[in-house]
């Protein structure tokens, strides 16, 4: 009966739960799904992490390559994030060039990296104007069940914290870079941005960490990214029903708590990796 109701009237189905201040999966309105983090999942990558939030699964691999810096910014390296939503993760995605959602997600991640200054691109410079590191951050969704932006940021941050760059010495005579794979150094992570996503139901009810179904039924999305100093790195709301300043403030406060939770998680997991090595 319930299954039939869910299929025929998905919106009514969700409303009947929200009326009782809970959600079909048993969560409260402001509760995140279980977040599981594994660091160092891909041994061939320079840094990697896998994040599961409920069923949403995101893997992030970081590949560092040597490149020439651009003429405009000779003292900087660059970071190239790319979010891939392959047909594997959900039937809503088709093969071929990335769709709007994947492109918007890539742009969002790039904006978060730039705004939060998680890594200073100056740190990636090896030889001014000659040589720098490029970090290709490939973020891939393995299972799509809503709220990929939060999961992407966690995966990216954890993977960046896990990244070790080889030492590069530029030979002065031949000006050929020599890479010492034995000596590796961790990246310096300046900030820890963590996102929290919200959905607005029926123009009034705010729910946190929406699943794919909740996302498709809701009238607005909002993602707030904060760092450990409680500064906001991004308040991203691509349209949808309007929210008042007070409501936004509620979301920001929830995001702050979430930041602490995830920051702690990443640190603890990273510690466990370091001690086990």
């Amino acid at each position, binding site marked *: 009966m319930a299954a039939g109701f869910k299929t025929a009237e998905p919106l009514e189905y969700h409303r009947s739960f929200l009326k009782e201040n809970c959600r079909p999966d048993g969560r409260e309105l402001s509760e995140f799904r279980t977040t599981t983090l594994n660091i160092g999942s891909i041994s061939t990558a320079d840094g990697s992490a896998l994040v599961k939030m409920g069923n949403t699964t995101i893997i992030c691999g970081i590949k560092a390559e040597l490149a020439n810096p651009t003429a405009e910014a000779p003292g900087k390296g660059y970071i190239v994030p790319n979010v891939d939503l392959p047909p594997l993760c959900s039937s809503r995605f088709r093969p071929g060039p990335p769709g709007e959602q994947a492109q918007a997600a890539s742009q*969002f991640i790039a904006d978060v990296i730039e*705004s939060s200054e998680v890594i200073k691109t100056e740190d990636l410079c090896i030889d001014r104007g000659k040589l720098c590191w490029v970090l290709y951050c490939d973020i891939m969704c393995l299972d799509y069940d809503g709220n990929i932006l939060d999961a992407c940021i966690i995966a990216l941050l954890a993977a960046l914290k896990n990244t070790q760059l080889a030492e590069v010495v530029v030979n002065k005579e031949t000006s050929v870079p020599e890479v010492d794979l034995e000596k590796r150094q961790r990246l310096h992570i300046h900030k820890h941005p963590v996102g929290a996503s919200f959905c607005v139901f029926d123009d009034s009810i705010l729910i946190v960490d929406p699943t794919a179904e909740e996302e498709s039924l809701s009238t607005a999305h*909002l993602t707030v990214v904060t760092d450990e100093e*409680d*500064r*906001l790195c991004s*308040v991203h709301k691509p*349209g949808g029903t*309007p929210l008042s300043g007070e409501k936004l403030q509620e979301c920001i406060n929830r995001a702050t708590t979430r930041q602490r939770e995830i920051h702690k998680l990443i640190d603890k997991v990273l510690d466990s990796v370091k001690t086990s090595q």
Partner: protein
Amino acid sequence: MMEVSPSTVSFREFGCEQTLLSRPDGSASFVQGDTSVMAGVYGPAEVKVSKEIYDRATLEVLVHPKVGLPGVRERSQEQCVRETCEASLLLSLHPRSSLTLILQVLHDDGSLLSCCLNAACMALMDAGLSMSCLFCGVTCAISTDGEIITDPTAAQEKESRALMTFAIDSKERRVMMSSTKGSFSVHELQQCITVSQKASEKIFQFYRDSVRRRYSKNL
């Protein structure tokens, strides 16, 4: 505590022309200082089967940059404008049909996204589409010494520490869209929202004036 000085909180000269193109069903060009965007709307019209939605109209938004082909940045702008328009348009009045909104950037001198939103709203009004509320875009920049600048130029944008664009609805002056760059404190965000809400009054007044002027004569 940051103070808001009145000198920086102003709009550049802005203007709008509607019905300037003969082909689209609705068109407008919006000018804010030197930044200008042209918008054209087609529809409601026949929809492609693959994009058909059974209970409402499909809205497509295309942003054309001035140089080169649309890229990832334009996609993200398209998403922001589309979802804002979707929330204000009464799309369920036109099921199984298509609406197309094309935005052509004519000149970018800062506050581009807010100019896109304003042009979009004027074009939708010109096309005579039913909307539940109007919306307008306001861009705020926070300079390095903590001052809020509304409607910044490209140079001011470049120097700023943080940049925020909000879409404000005309009904309750709430935030429909928000897109930010740079990091800022919670207090700064709330200040910018309040400033944008106040600034939106000016734009809505402008909307009203231009519509009044337009329909002042009976043809």
